[in-house]
Structures are given as structure tokens and as C-alpha cells.
């Protein structure tokens, strides 16, 4: 008798675990990605080659930093249009210092720190002067790009020479190294995966990060719960700058230099990835994992179009039509869910 009862409750638990997994926002997206992946595997021979996958993953690791940055800001109910530009400025500063003879590690730390400072300034403008995210970050998109132009005088910075020096070999690994075996998993991917896991874990588990969700869900109620919402919003902008800085350093080493247009359009990819991944534009809802799955979806679309030799002239059009369709679908699903509960 006792045995059957125990079994039942075990079953019940398993049941709820499955229910939870299937019910999770990320699950349906994950299924779509797997299906898409299988489809490409069987239709395109080139798709499932290590080179193709590696190229995709490495490009994701820099864009991905801006996606996570965007997810943080969107969770507080804001938006950060300056992610790409902040990344570009951070790497330009790092590159100039490095080229000028500074130790590359120190230069990288300064580069990342400059991203944090940019985030802090924006956060102060948003909370203390009470400007909206859209305006502040739009202006900083221009300001950062303008500073890059000023620093570089409009010409790309090449780091091929300093990076080829013996003493910087360890640093080169950050962007170009492999792990486990020669021609193995590139280090940028591993750094990215580590950042995803850490951020996802912190947002789910840390009490400090929970304040981000409360602030985004209902800023007033958060204040009435004793949360210093201004501080949360500033911190999140600084986290965004920090992540963009890391992305910038990886980008810089990967390309052995700084193209002045680095990170252009990343903000749009980041927003689209977050929205597809279930991060609410109104704040308070979403996960880093979801946003990264959104990016995976976007990357697969681009890759598929390249493999199918879709003309670049229509790629942008198709990409954003698919984004729109995904958002409409998701919205319908959310409405159905709300109806079911009510």
C-alpha cells in the first residue's frame, strides 16, 4: 500500500517535471531550432561540417554578448540601443592602448571598464534626470560611434603586428585559440557559454538579481517593497556595458583589429533575439537562455539563407519577416495562455 502511494507521488513529480519542461517558454523555441537544424543537416551537406558550425558559433559569441546585455536591460523594462556602439568604442580604446605598447591584458581591462563607465553615465541620465532609455541609448549609440571615428580618424586599427609578437601569444588565444584539441572548440565560444551559464544562473538564483525582475515588472511596487529601483537600473546599464566590453575584446582579437563599423546593427539583432526568446519588452519576464536561443534561431536563418544561396539583396527582408512572424505567433500563444488561465 505504502509502496503504491510512494510510486504515485514519484510519478506525479515526474509528470510535473515534464509539464514544467514542456510548458517553459524556451521549450517550443528549442524544438523549432532542433527541427530547423535537422532540416538543414539533411538538405545541405555543408551545414553539418565543423567549419560551418564553428563559424556560426564564433560569430554568435560576440553578438551574443550584446544579446545578453540587451536581455538584462529589457528585463528592467528598458532598452539599450547602444550595445553595438559601446562594444565598438570599448574595443577601439583597447586597441589604441594595446597598439601604443600597453600590456594587452591591462588594455583589455581598461576597454571593458570603459564599457562599464558608458553604462554608468547612461544609467545616471535615465534615473537622475529621468530621461527614457530609448532617447539616452540612442544618443549614446551616436556618441560612441562618434568617439570611435574621432579616435581612429575613420580608418580601421590593425593589430596584426602586435598580436604576432611572441609575448602576446597567450592573449591571442582569447579570440583565436582552441581548446581540447587542435582545431577544436574555439575559446570565444567557451567564454560565451560560460557567460551565458553564469548570467542565467545569477538571474534565476541570486537575490540581488531578482530585484531586476521586480523593477521591470512593476517599478512602483518594487519601490514599495523597499527596492532601490534607481540603483537597479543603473547597475543593469553597467552590466550591459561590461558585457559589451567583453564582447569587444573578443571581437578585437578575433579580427586582429578594429573595423570602424564593428558591432553595427547588433542592437537590432539583439532586440530581435530577445523578443523571439521571450524577453518581454515591458520588463519583468524572460531568461538569458531564451534570448540566446533567440539568437541561435536568427543565426540559423542567416546561415540557411547563405547555404541556399539566397541573394543578399533579399536576406534582410526575409530575416525580419521571419522575426515578425515569430513575434506574431508568440503573441497569439501568450494570449491563448492568458485566456486559459482567466
Amino acid at each position: 500500500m505504502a509502496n503504491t502511494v510512494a510510486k504515485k507521488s514519484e510519478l506525479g513529480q515526474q509528470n510535473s517535471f515534464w509539464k514544467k519542461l514542456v510548458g517553459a517558454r524556451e521549450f517550443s523555441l528549442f524544438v523549432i531550432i532542433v527541427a530547423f537544424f535537422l532540416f538543414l543537416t539533411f538538405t545541405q551537406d555543408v551545414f553539418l561540417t565543423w567549419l560551418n558550425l564553428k563559424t556560426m558559433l564564433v560569430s554568435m559569441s560576440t553578438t551574443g554578448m550584446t544579446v545578453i546585455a540587451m536581455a538584462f536591460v529589457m528585463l528592467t523594462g528598458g532598452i539599450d540601443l547602444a550595445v553595438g556602439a559601446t562594444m565598438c568604442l570599448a574595443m577601439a580604446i583597447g586597441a589604441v592602448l594595446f597598439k601604443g605598447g600597453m600590456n594587452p591584458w591591462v588594455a583589455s581591462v581598461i576597454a571593458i571598464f570603459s564599457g562599464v563607465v558608458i553604462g554608468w553615465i547612461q544609467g545616471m541620465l535615465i534615473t537622475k534626470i529621468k530621461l527614457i532609455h530609448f532617447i539616452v541609448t540612442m544618443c549614446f549609440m551616436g556618441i560612441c560611434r562618434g568617439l570611435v571615428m574621432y579616435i581612429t580618424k575613420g580608418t580601421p586599427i590593425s593589430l596584426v603586428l602586435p598580436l604576432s609578437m611572441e609575448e602576446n601569444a597567450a592573449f591571442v588565444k582569447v579570440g583565436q585559440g582552441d581548446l581540447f584539441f587542435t582545431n577544436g572548440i574555439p575559446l570565444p565560444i567557451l567564454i560565451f557559454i560560460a557567460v551565458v551559464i553564469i548570467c542565467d544562473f545569477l538571474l534565476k538564483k541570486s537575490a540581488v538579481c531578482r530585484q531586476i525582475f521586480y523593477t521591470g515588472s512593476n517599478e512602483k511596487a518594487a519601490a514599495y517593497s523597499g527596492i532601490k529601483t534607481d540603483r537597479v537600473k543603473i547597475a543593469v546599464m553597467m552590466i550591459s556595458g561590461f558585457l559589451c566590453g567583453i564582447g569587444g575584446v573578443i571581437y578585437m582579437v578575433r579580427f586582429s583589429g578594429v573595423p570602424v563599423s564593428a558591432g553595427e546593427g547588433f542592437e537590432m539583432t539583439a532586440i530581435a533575439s530577445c523578443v523571439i526568446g521571450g524577453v518581454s519588452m515591458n520588463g519583468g519576464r524572460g531568461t538569458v537562455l531564451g534570448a540566446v536561443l533567440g539568437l541561435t534561431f536568427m543565426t540559423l536563418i542567416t546561415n540557411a539563407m547563405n547555404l541556399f544561396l539566397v541573394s543578399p539583396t533579399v536576406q534582410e527582408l526575409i530575416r525580419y519577416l521571419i522575426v515578425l512572424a515569430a513575434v506574431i505567433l508568440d503573441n497569439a500563444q501568450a494570449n491563448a495562455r492568458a485566456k486559459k488561465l482567466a
Partner: protein
Amino acid sequence: MAENILELRGLSKSFGANQVLFDVNFSLKPGEVHAIIGENGAGKSTMMNITYGLVKPNSGEIYIDGKKVDIKDPNDAEKNGICFVHQEIALCQEMTIAQNILMTRVKNMKDINLNYKKINEEAQKLIDDIVPGFDVSQPVESLNIAGQQVVEIAKALSMDCKILILDEPTSSLSDKETVALYRIMDNLKEKGIGIVYISHRLAEIFEKCDRVSVLRDGYMINTYDVANVNAAQLVNDMAGREMNNIYPPKAESVDYSDETVMLEVKNLSAKRRFKDVNFKLHRGEILGFSGLVGAGRTEIMEAIVGLREVKPGGEVIFEGENILGTAAKKIFKKGIAYLPESRKETGLFLEMGIHQNTSSLHLETIQNGALLSNAKEIAQANKFITALRTKCSSPVQPVNSLSGGNQQKVLFSKMLTVKPKILIADEPTRGVDVGAKSEIHALLRALATEGTGVIVVSSELNEILGICDRVLVMYEGKIVGEVKGEDVVANNVMHYASGAFLLEENK
């Protein structure tokens, strides 16, 4: 011409199962100021919203100049010469006074070619008739509240108005501005316009009105000529009632000695909000704050818990120290909880789960070291769902899928995860069904019995009378009366809340 410019016959209205008007009759003569009084929720606004076509009645008829009319929407109302000046200013702040006054005219798309010069001249004439000295080409935002009220009235009059409804027009006006408004009303009376004057303040009724009707709980109690009635009678009409809720028994006796003081507020003032507030909260009592909306009650509570900065301030003594000016978070940690008046705006995280709402005030209750425990969070939510009998299908269900009463229970759970030493509940049962309401009242009483100091702020007189052991009544930012124990009855509280005590003092 008929004797009555406006007549309402047998108006009834219910929202769902909740009937708010019962067979109400009302009449208005040309050139008359007819006041409607009654406490919050008596049905005054619903009655006027029906007249203006904003709400459809379940039954009843409206007559204008003796002719039956069908008013489907505010356009119909305006065609019939009914104008409504709402309590809240609803003007386009950036646009000019003239554009605002003639806004309703611009609705007609055929007049696409607007002649601004003509509009300005016309508006200037309209407003000069009321109060001279306005420049209609200035934006509305350059005016103070009283000025904006004048614009609202001019806007109403621009539509060939015969019946003017003023909904608590003086609630945001200073004394001087009120006098100006009275002059305008005199002016309009002379023109034969009938005015419906909704107010909470008895003094205004005696000063300015010809007749007065009292609404209570949706019933029209009486209509008097102001000359033949006194304040006591009106208070009686507004307050007299049967108790239709069952309240938990009150404390048998409260020890009001100095040893039982849990919180003491001394000389607390805030510019333009409240002044010289002094009170003590004792262990074991439920202390009520009564008064009209806008009397300053919420502001005081927010100041006490550090959610509002006040100047010049004063003292709030809790456990031997002055906590005024301490950050809200620290005050909550000390054991004072504040249940805000609007659960949707300032209380809950609507699209987040019951569990995440419950834990939001004291995250430390679900922590393992620095990390949050999902299991603990759900266990805590379940504990309170059982204790408060919250009706839901799962502890992770988003709170916006719950009914108002159950949402309020989640809000209470949030306050109780760490048992508070003092609980300040602002409108604890607003928008809550009857069942949940009495459960919440029982909960408040249980907390008080167990030694939590409980303050209840409520605009609902029944609630104050039903659960409070002692009541402080506020009027325009001051505590004007205290009633205790046996004396906590409607007439005593209304005497202070309506300002009737002022009339007595004057005599």
C-alpha cells in the same frame, strides 16, 4: 417651459451582482444649485455618469424640460445641454486655452480649415463672461489648478449649456480660488443655468446651494431645501445604516497606558499635505484612520514607512528611536509593513507568479545563503495560500489571473512572510468581494490579538466602524477628531469627516 429643467425618474443601476443605484429620483430647476452629498461609493458619480451618457442605466428615465430623452453617449448629453466638469482636470496641457475651450467644436472634420483668429475671439468672449483677465492664446499648462478649472467650465459653457454638473469642483482649490468659483456660479445662476453640485463638504452646501439631496448606499434618502435643514440631519442621513457585514468581535479592552505604545508620531508635517499629526499606536488595538479621499491619510502612512520624504517633518518613534527619514527597506526590516492602497499600481507584480509576489518583500525568507531556493519559495507560497485560503490553481500562477479578493490575499501574504510588529493596511479591502473581505477583517483582528500593532486606513465607513477599536478622523490634512470604544459609531465619525464640526465651532 416646464418647471424642472432636468428630472431623473426611477434610476437603477448594477455592475454585475453589485447594485449601486436603487430607484433614484432627482430634479433640478433652472437657476438652481442642487447639491448631491453622500460618502464615498454612495452612488453620486454613477448617477451623474448616467445623466451624462457615460453609463447606461438598467432602468429609469431622464426628462429634460419635461420631455423624455434618450441619452446614449456624451454627445447626446451635450446636444441636450448637459455639461459635466469632472473632478479631475482633463485638458490638453500643451494646447492653448482657446483650443481647449473649443475642442469639442473641432470634432467636426468638415471644419478642417480652422480659423484660429476666430476661435481665439470666440473663446476670449466665453471666458471673459465668466472671469475677465485670461489670455486665451496661452497654453493651459501656464495656469494654476483654479485657472484650469475655469477653462473646464468655459469649455462646458461653449456648448450652449443648460445643465452644469460640477463634480467636487473645490477638492483641489484653495479658499481664495473657491470664492472665485462661487462668483462664477452666481453668474451662471442668473443666466438660468441649473447646477448639480457634487460635494463632500457640508460647509459648501450651506454657503452656496439651494437644495440638497442625500444618497446613501445607492438609495436617495432625502431632498431638502437648504434653508430648512441643519448639519446634524444631513450627517444622520449620510451615516444612518444597518450593518450588512459581519465583523469580527472587537478587542475587549485596550490598555492605553504608555507601556503599550508601539509607535508614536509627534508633530509630523508635510507642506500642503498634512499638518501637526500626533498619535500613538497601542499594542492589541486596531487603530482606524478615517476621512475623505485626499484628507492626507495615505501621505502620512507613506511618510512613516519612509516611502515619502516630508518637510518640515517631525518625529516617528519606534522602539525608542526616531525612524523618520530612514530608507523604506530598513524600516521594513525593522518590522513595520505597509500594505499600499492600490494593489495593481503599487502592490503586486501582476504578471509574476504568486510565489514571486509573496517573497518580494522579504527575499531573505527564501534564501539559502546568497542564493534563492525555488523549493523554499514555492513552499512559502503554499503555506500562505493555505493559511489565507487563497483560491488558485497553482502557486506559480501569475497573480493577474486571480480575482481581486485573491490578489489582495497575495498582497497580505507578502506583508506577512516575516511577521510584522506593526502592520499599516491602507484600504485593506478595496475592490474585494464580500467573502474575502470578512476573511481579511478576521485576519487583521487575529494579528492585533497576537500583538501586532494594526493601523487601518479606509474610506469605507462601514469598515472603519466594524473593525476599529479607536478611530482618528482626518479633515484637510489634520487629525480633527478621535473616537474610541463604544463611541465608534457612524454619526460621531461623520461629524468630523464631513466638516460638520466646523459649522458648530463657527456658531
